């Protein structure tokens, strides 16, 4: 293909955007795996202020029980519906470890709630600090604006959905509307919810802001939302990876590493 068919390289991502992106990636990796360690200490999710022991307010339980033979059976119960998850959840590993999430998915790899908590809080602080830096820098350099879908964007939503479904990607200076919606929901919804539901699990913070507990419907509901947001972020990560691979991994990686992004050549104005 002749060089002239390539579009120009543009400087798309500021150093603030690139640096914070990678710090978040590292933080979320460790937060998730230490979070699973913490979850394993009490592997069920409940709705309300407290956890029902004499009554049932659980929406998710992961556990183990004796099977018909010598072997242990791992199970996962979602809204009362139970499925066997031996090998993955409840019972896993060569030694038939009885724990909700397997050792391969927890940090540290052994059972240690204390160590999991210490590392979790460390990365929680880094994440919060980086988000604050990013928010200030992005407000100043205009990046925040690029994440908010405009009315014109939203009108183009059906077309954008159709384009994505056919894996027809347009490489333009600005994010497309689905990108804006995805990034905005992570940065303005999921991560703030993560932080606020995390704080809602703190008895000392409950004394500072009891209204936050009421907002989320109780400490155990906050814990449940915290977990579900984690699942949502994993969903985002998977789609994020698929989209990078589908849209051109070299170009996408170059832009988040160096800031430079190659856009499509101009073609009679139907570009955006």
């Amino acid at each position, binding site marked *: 293909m002749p060089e002239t068919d390539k579009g120009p390289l543009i400087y798309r991502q500021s150093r603030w955007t*690139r640096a914070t992106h*990678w710090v978040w*990636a*590292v933080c979320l*990796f*460790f937060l998730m*795996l230490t979070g699973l360690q*913490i*979850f394993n*200490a*009490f592997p069920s999710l409940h709705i309300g*202020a*407290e*956890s*029902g*022991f*004499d*009554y049932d307010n659980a929406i998710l339980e992961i556990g183990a029980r004796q099977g018909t033979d010598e072997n242990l059976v791992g199970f996962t119960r979602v809204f009362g519906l139970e499925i066997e998850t031996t090998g993955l959840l409840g019972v896993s590993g060569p030694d038939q470890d009885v724990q909700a999430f397997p*050792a*391969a*998915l*927890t*940090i*540290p*790899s*052994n059972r*240690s*709630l*204390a*160590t999991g*908590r*210490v*590392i979790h*809080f*460390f990365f929680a*602080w880094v994440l919060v600090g980086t988000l604050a830096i990013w928010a200030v820098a992005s407000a100043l350099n205009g990046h925040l604006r690029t994440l908010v879908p405009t009315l014109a964007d939203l009108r183009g939503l059906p077309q954008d959905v159709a384009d994505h479904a056919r894996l027809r990607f347009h490489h333009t200076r600005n994010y497309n509307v689905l990108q804006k919606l995805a990034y905005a929901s992570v940065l303005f919804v999921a991560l703030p919810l993560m932080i606020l539901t995390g*704080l809602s*699990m*703190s*008895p*000392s*913070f*409950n*004394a*500072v802001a*009891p209204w936050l*507990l009421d907002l989320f419907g109780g*400490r*155990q509901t906050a*814990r449940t939302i915290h977990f579900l947001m984690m699942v949502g972020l994993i969903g985002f990560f998977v789609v994020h990876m698929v989209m990078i691979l589908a849209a051109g991994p070299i170009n996408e990686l170059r832009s988040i*590493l*160096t800031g430079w992004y190659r856009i499509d050549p101009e073609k009679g104005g139907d570009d955006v």
Partner: protein
Amino acid sequence: MYNRRGLLLGAAALGLSGCKVLDGANEKDSALRGVFESVSNLTYRAQRLLGGGHTLAPEYTEADIRQGQRPNGSVDPDGEDYLTLSQSGFAGYGLTVTGLVERPLTIPLAGLKAMPSRTQITRHDCVEGWSCIAKWTGVPLSAVLNEARPKTTARFAVFHCYDVLERSLSGEVKYYESIDLIDAYHPQTILAYGLNGADLPVANGAPLRLRVERQLGYKMAKYVHTIELVDSFATYGLGKGSYWADRGYEWYAGI
């Protein structure tokens, strides 16, 4: 550019080596753990800054009590001294207040019950993740401390307990906890002898347990027999101020 590449390669390497990558942080005195624990002080300061002295933990209503208080940790102490007391319905029990106080004293259980009491319906949050709402009745710790008159040098209250957590050749390891005087004088900090309208059961810490409502369950020592006022808890246990803090948990358990 190369730094960013290095970062990316590092992240990839972390992924490849699986989750054993931070196992070194299990070691109590490792440099890696030191890095992670360096923010514990920040966490503590943030909580003190926001919570100030006496913000109150949320209190609940009778209607919110839907189950018994879930017992956890020690539920049935088997020490000779404790068994002697429990067999007589704790008639011979006395709470000793000692250390940096003007007037060391021992108050029998009946004496504690005769003092002004406070009843509060609060949520107990275990470090494991669960919560349970119950009604606690007891004497405010501040009232007991006022009787003993802490010296100005006192900074922490150390709670000594009957329950033995570990037995080994080097002796018994008993449960102990400590809080600072800010929490000791907090209006919701009580020495509870009643639970959900009845005497405190053995499983929940009879005859007397601590309630520190802005912290996690492990701070709320059960089976308390002595409160010692100190200026430092470095000489107790492994020096971190609490049985669980000695085992890697935070001393200030507000989150």
